């Protein structure tokens, strides 16, 4: 028992608190792949360079088990027993909201590569940062673009799961429609394990042009299956989060084609590129080599979180282990940082509702197309493909 051993100073040590078991294990695994790939690549490149000498990166994991209080204990374990220099954060807002106060108490820097809920940033935690733009931005911007597809939609049915992330998503979708002057026929929140035929029946009787849905993968699958069973087909479904995951595609077993989604990053995307991985395509290749599957934006954002630390540490110029003052300094550096990565440009807001959230990376609408349901960017951006719209199967 007792505290962790005094660690040597030859490596930067990062604690990762994420859900490796429990309901959120799927998302937790995605973040883990992102963090791992960053670590592997940077160590192959010799490590983080500080004042001419390089230091390798070490990751140590603690399982939050999808439970906030376990997450808080895990965070404490990272800081007091493992004595890490900084923390890479969990998946899901509930766990993040329990972990963040521990970071405040111990004044330890903390970047999440996956948390998207606006709730986190409203709390104005000084030590917590996030590389994924909040869903309020992602869902809204993607929705607005989808609403602009031709023929322009005149009405939309918004449904969602009554969960913190999902509700924020659905309400962002609704805001987008209201912004564009499109009639919102309903804003219909449901428990995640409800029977979605009720939503589908209500929607069908309203006969909207588009159906927007905020939720996690399980609810998308149930919703779309119910729509199929009841012969409900609007011009398109826009679901967020996770249409570009194997979980979603497997869950629907081939019926996923045509579904719209939102993302901030795709393997095929054009980004300035920068540190560690030259381009999105480079990153995607490295990820496929390592894990045998395509990365999604959560994984990319998790790797980007590592890259942000990397640049911040270089700027800090202190060798590991970091002292308390160095950790505080690292936080101030993060506040002002500007990093160019394969994932996009990353900066953190310094005030407002999105305090410490990276709102720079721009969101894009995507659609699953083709035989293997590849996600392609649609909409108005330069590189966008032609959308299949109104969706025909």
């Amino acid at each position, binding site marked *: *028992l007792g505290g962790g051993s005094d660690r040597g100073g030859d490596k930067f040590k990062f604690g990762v608190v994420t859900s490796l078991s429990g309901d959120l294990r799927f998302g937790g695994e995605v973040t883990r792949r992102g963090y791992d790939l960053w670590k592997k690549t940077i160590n192959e490149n010799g490590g983080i360079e500080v004042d001419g000498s390089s230091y390798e990166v070490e990751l140590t994991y603690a399982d939050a*088990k999808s439970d906030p*209080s376990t997450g*808080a*204990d895990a965070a404490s374990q990272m800081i*007091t027993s493992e004595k890490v220099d900084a923390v890479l954060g969990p998946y899901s807002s*509930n766990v993040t909201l329990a972990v963040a106060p521990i970071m405040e108490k111990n004044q330890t820097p903390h970047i999440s590569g996956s948390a998207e809920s606006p709730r986190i940033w409203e709390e104005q935690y000084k030590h917590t940062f996030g590389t994924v733009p909040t869903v309020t931005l992602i869902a809204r911007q993607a929705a607005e673009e989808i609403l602009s597809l031709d023929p322009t939609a005149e009405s939309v049915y918004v449904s969602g799961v009554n969960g913190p992330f999902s*509700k924020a998503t659905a309400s962002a979708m609704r805001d987008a429609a209201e912004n564009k002057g499109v009639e919102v026929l309903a804003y219909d929140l449901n428990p995640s394990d409800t029977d979605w035929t009720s939503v589908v029946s209500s929607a069908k009787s309203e006969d909207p042009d588009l159906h927007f849905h905020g939720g996690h993968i399980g609810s998308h699958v149930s919703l779309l299956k119910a729509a199929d069973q009841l012969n409900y087909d609007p011009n398109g479904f826009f679901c967020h989060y996770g249409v570009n995951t194997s979980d979603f595609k497997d869950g629907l077993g081939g019926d996923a084609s045509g579904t719209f989604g939102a993302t901030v990053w795709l393997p095929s995307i054009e980004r300035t590129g920068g540190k560690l991985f030259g381009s999105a395509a480079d990153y995607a290749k490295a990820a496929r080599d390592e894990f045998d599957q395509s990365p999604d934006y959560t994984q990319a954002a998790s790797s980007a979180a590592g890259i942000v630390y990397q640049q911040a540490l270089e700027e800090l110029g202190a060798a590991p282990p970091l002292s308390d003052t160095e950790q505080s300094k690292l936080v101030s550096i993060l506040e002002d940082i500007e990093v160019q990565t394969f994932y996009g440009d990353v900066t953190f807001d310094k005030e407002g509702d999105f305090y410490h959230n990276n709102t720079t990376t721009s969101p894009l609408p995507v659609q699953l197309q083709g035989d293997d349901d590849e996600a392609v960017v649609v909409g108005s951006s330069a590189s966008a493909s032609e959308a299949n719209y109104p969706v025909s199967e």
Partner: protein
Amino acid sequence: MGTENDLTVRDRFQALLGRDDAHLWLFGIGAVVLAVLPFALSTFWTRIALGALMWIGLAQSWNMIGGYAGYLDFGHGAYFGVGAFVTGIVMVELELPFVAGLLIAGVFCAVLAYVVGVPTLRLSGAYFAIATWAFAEAIKELALILEITGGTYGMTFPTGPGTSGIPLVGWPDEMFFYYLMMVLTLGTIALAYFLFEHSEFGFRVKAIRDHEDAAQSLGIDATKIKRRVYVISCVIAALFGGANAYYITFIHPNDVLAPIITDQMIIMALLGGLGTIGGPIIGGVLIFLLNRLSSLFLGNTTIYLPLIGLLIMVTVLFAPSGVIGILRGEVGREDVKQNLRELAEKFDIL
């Protein structure tokens, strides 16, 4: 070694338990050890210890209504959650300190438990179990749609100096919560001991558990006694809920009102030994540590889930009186063999 050589650890334990003042001694020694413990532990381990203390207390609170009174409360966790939210609402909306929040949560849950108890305790057996379960689920769903609980966005507690309402401690750190949980848990254990093991009240509660009609015919006011036990045990759960919420600083209905909270209390009480003082202590520590520390030993896998499942099944099969039964020598090698033989007979299905 001397002549005590022949005594096994179990014999000694039994000898100790056999003494009239054994309980007092155990309690005293335990309290002293607990009081100095955090000075020997790192913050992380202090957190683990305080978590274990909380679960011991929660398991004991369930044991009061479930083990001693025999009313299988499948909605006990509702009070843990309601305690958490009431504490939070008092702190956030009324901007009162934590201590006030906790007290108000206790009183609120006492009233709630009384009001709920009057009709619900008329049911028994599976009916009571299912009714309390449905009640707890309804409470959870309510918390998810109400405005004042933060709905599905959850609730964040105010932290920082002054929010606790206790002048001695500034910023509420792990030590503060450790001693808070210690006091609550030791208090719960002492209360359970005096109520159920050291008074005629205890016999009456058990009489109701074993045969309610007969108890009534002997002048025992079953309705009142059951209600009393129910209210006490619910208030204890609420106090732990409030304390835990302030400690975690963020609560969400899906977490503090999750059915798994109740399930854990039940499993802990049962695995340790129902209707005993020691059972929930042993069960609480065992299951909590297994849950929380499994990743230290087993790596990052979910294998601890089937393992806990197996552990529960094996305990019920071979040590129906729980781990405390093993310690008391009720479950020896012979009993296990006997059990196996009887079990084998039941496989005669052709």
